């Protein structure tokens, strides 16, 4: 008897479980970030803003936005990637998936996307606001 869940739902649950498992298993920030935090720096908000800006720039320049969109919203059509914004992704999980991708996701080596760049991307994704749902958008809510 087939499950009532759609294939898309099954994929999303499996991905979320994978990410959640990695989030629980992985440590927090890499050493580079800890070292930076120990030094005397400008106010955190300025540093964070710079990190977010760098993260967005890297996210676009190395092609993450090509498949996942500029805000990690995901895409449709050939060679598009799933949503990665506000799904509980942490730096450990992000790093793991980038180095050990599944399905059509290409892998990024340390030279292509180093730890600092990944941390910046994580900061960028974390900075994004919670996206709306269909219930928040009148045109979608009315038509659903």
């Amino acid at each position, binding site marked *: *008897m*087939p499950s*009532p*869940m*759609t*294939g*898309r*739902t*099954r*994929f*999303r649950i499996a991905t979320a479980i994978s990410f959640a498992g990695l989030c629980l298993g992985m440590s927090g920030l890499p050493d580079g970030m800890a070292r930076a935090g120990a030094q005397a720096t400008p106010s955190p908000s300025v540093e964070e803003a710079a990190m977010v800006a760098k993260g967005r720039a890297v996210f676009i*320049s*190395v*092609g993450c*936005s*090509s*498949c*996942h*969109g*500029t*805000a990690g*919203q*995901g*895409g*449709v*059509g*050939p*060679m*598009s*990637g799933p*949503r990665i*914004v506000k799904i509980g992704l942490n730096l450990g999980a992000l790093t793991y998936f980038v180095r050990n991708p599944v*399905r*059509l996701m*290409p*892998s*990024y*080596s340390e*030279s*292509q996307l180093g730890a600092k760049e990944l941390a910046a991307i994580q900061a960028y994704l974390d900075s994004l606001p919670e*996206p*709306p*749902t*269909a219930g*928040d*958008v009148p*045109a*979608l809510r009315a*038509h*659903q």
Partner: protein
Amino acid sequence: MPATQAKDHPAPTGAVPAPDMAKEAGDVPQRAKSIVGRSGSDFMVDVIKSLGIDYIAANPGSSFRGLQESFINYGADKRPQWLTCLHEETSVAIAHGYSKIAGKPMIAMVHATVGVQHASMAIYNAYADRVPLLILSGNGLDANTRRVPVEWAHSVQDNAAMVRDYTKWDDTPASLQHFAESQVRAMRLACALPCAPVMITADMDLQEEELTPDEEARLIVPKLSVDRPPQGDEGSVREAALLLAAAENPVIVADRYAHTPAALPLLVELAELLQAPVIDTATRMNFPNTHYLNHSDDRGLIASADLILALEVTDLWGMTHRLLDIVGRPWQSVTQPECKIVSIGTGDLLIKANYQDFQRYAAADIAMSADPEATLPILIDAVRRALPASRRSAITARGSRLRQAFAQNRREMFDAAAVGWNLSPIHSARLAMEVWEQIKGQDFTIAGTPFAVPGVWARRLWDLDKAHHHTGASGAAGVGYGLPAAVGSALANQGTDRITVNFQPDGDFLYAPGALWTAAHHQIPLLTIMHNNRSYHQERMHLQLMANRHDRAVDRAGIGTDITDPNIDFAQMARSMGVYAEGPINTPADLRAAISRALAVVRKGEPALLDVICQAR
């Protein structure tokens, strides 16, 4: 005859003596005859008018000057009406898009050699998409009458040779009677399933030579007879019905299935009888997206199916296997070992060796070489007879589960559309829904290329339940199809109250932008909304993949793929061709008013374009 030739070679008996051009320099040479009452091309027009062709799309060429003049004067430019195109690729793609809505062919007229060369990609698209299309070309076969030098460069022994791999049939008639029979046969073959382009080459001399009343009296225009579609044989249909009735998890896959408006209700009837999910590949408008049995996004159903009914599925292997584009290109079957496949399609009735559009070989347990649309009525009857009462509750329960899954999938789809709602560059789902907000409740067609991302969202989020709601695929994915095909579909929609919407990728647009001028010149109402991601984005991602694979600089993938620096002003380009246009539009809040203004233009009967800067995907 030149004077020097006359001096060295006396004129044959009965011929008009050549003047001494040196002596009478400046005088016009005496012609044998200045006025020809009727010519062969007039008769050719008579033949074509007998076929009910409404339009000819053409970029002018001297190899068919006889035919063109006959069409526009003798034929009064009516049925068929002449459409001026700025490239032969446009002419053919307009005819392709037209056939998707009109359900019948029109003519694309192309100049010999170089015109055929220009047209070739569009002809391949039409062939791969299996649509009816008539190509008419001129040619100067007789070396004795060719003008030097251009007619020599533009003449060929076998005009159709370069497109024969992707046309169904072609001929170069040697006489007017031959032309009549071949042109009528061409119409019949183009429309006989599986449909495809056919080509007739009308020799220039045949076009231009005088047609005397005596000669004309002997000519006969044969009657057109149309082949009825092949239907599945009774035994195979009965066998398939038994399998369908007994299946626990049947799945119906509809690919190039629908070719008339009757197709949708037939498939709905079969799906509801079985409470079977339908995967509509969107190659045609096969099944309403509002129906709870539409599960086109859930390819996981293939993996759990115990029976797959494939209706004109071109790529059955791709449907039942997964090949990953990673090193080694590994592939595997995704179906259960015991899954049975019933295939009904006409693919094996027209297959050629060179171009590989026939896709990878896949076996079926029952393979019917037949038109599924013509076969479905008898299959439905057979399934009805084969379904025992004992299966009723299981089938009803299956339907309930599918209804729940459909509702959940729809919620997820609408939530996914919301995620990028306020982004700049503009999210394609936002763009699609802003258009929907202003055309919902009206009749419409989504035309052009199926790959435009806003169009993908539109096919998910809009209510699509009529045969003309979208025009499906381009055939061979030859880029440049979208804009002219949309013009062709809009042409076929003239006289209805349908709004033709073309979500237009920027890269695809740039191959044949002159199609916009054709739309303006002939007042063909079409709403073109650019999906402008300033890139040949698919190819950019291919390059990223290669850079990833080689552990090299991914950030250089824009070399050879990005369309920036400078950014192209599509609105200005459109306005230069007489098309109302606005843009670039970067902010989602600006969409509503711009779409409203553009729609006002389209409703007046003219084309309009909005250049929208979009997310890449």
